[in-house]
C-alpha cells in the first residue's frame, strides 16, 4: 500500500520524524510519496544554491530561512540554533541516523519527493536551488497520490 506524507514544517525534529516514517514504510514494501510545501521546502534547499534575481521580499525569505537539512532548527528549545546543534550531538552519541543520511536513503529507496510549486513561487525558490531528484507539482498531484494511499500524515 501507498503512504503519503505532507511535510509542511521546516523544523529539524519534524523533518527527521517524517523521513524516519517514510524510510520505515519504504523498507516495509510501501510506495511512499512525500509532498513538501511551505517551510518544509527548506529541507530540500541546496546549502549553496545558484543565485537568482529575486524581489526584495523573496530575497529576504531566501536569505533568512535555513538552507538545507544542516541548518534546520528545533521546534522546541532551539535557543537560536544551539539546541539543534546539541540535538545533533546527542543523536550521534546514540547512533541515531542523521537527517542527511535519511534523506539519501529515501532517494535510494525510491521515495517520491514532490515539491509544491506554489510554495516555491511564494518563497522565491527556483528548481535548481533545491536538491536533485525532485518532482515539481501542485495539490492535485498530491491528492491523486493520496487517493491511492491508506495512511496520510501532515507534519
Amino acid at each position, binding site marked *: 500500500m501507498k503512504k503519503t506524507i505532507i511535510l509542511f514544517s521546516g523544523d529539524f525534529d519534524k523533518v527527521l520524524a517524517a523521513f*524516519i516514517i517514510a*524510510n*520505515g514504510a519504504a*523498507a*516495509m514494501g510501501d510506495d511512499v510519496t512525500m509532498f513538501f510545501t511551505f517551510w518544509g521546502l527548506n529541507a530540500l534547499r541546496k546549502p549553496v544554491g545558484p543565485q537568482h534575481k529575486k524581489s526584495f521580499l523573496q530575497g529576504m525569505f531566501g536569505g533568512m530561512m535555513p538552507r538545507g537539512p544542516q541548518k534546520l532548527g528545533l521546534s522546541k528549545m532551539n535557543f537560536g540554533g544551539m539546541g539543534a546543534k546539541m540535538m545533533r550531538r546527542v543523536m550521534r552519541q*546514540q*547512533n*541515531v*541516523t542523521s537527517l542527511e543520511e535519511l534523506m539519501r536513503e529515501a532517494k535510494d*529507496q525510491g521515495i517520491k519527493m514532490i515539491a509544491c510549486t506554489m510554495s516555491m513561487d511564494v518563497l522565491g525558490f527556483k528548481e535548481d536551488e533545491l536538491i536533485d531528484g525532485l518532482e515539481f507539482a501542485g495539490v492535485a498531484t498530491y491528492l491523486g497520490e493520496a487517493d491511492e494511499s491508506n495512511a496520510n500524515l501532515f507534519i
Partner: protein
Amino acid sequence: MSVTELSTIQPNKTVDARGTSCPGPILAAKKGIVDVKVGEIMAVLATDSGTKKDLPAWAKKMGHDYLGFIEEQGHFKLFVKRLK
C-alpha cells in the same frame, strides 16, 4: 521457536545492523532478504531494542516468517525465514 532451537540455526545470511537505530535494522533486513532464497533463513544482528518488535512487524507485512530472537553478547540476533 525456543531459544535452544534458535541457537542451533545456521542462517544462510547474517545482516549486521548493530549500532544503527530505527529504522536502520529494517532497512538492513530489506536489503539483506534479497540475498537469501525462498525457504532460507536470514539473521539480523541489532542493538536497538525496538527491533524485537519492529522486525516481526516487518516480516509479517512482507510475508516472511519471523522465527524469534536470541540474546548474544551485547546484541540481539533475530531470525527471519524468507517465504516469498
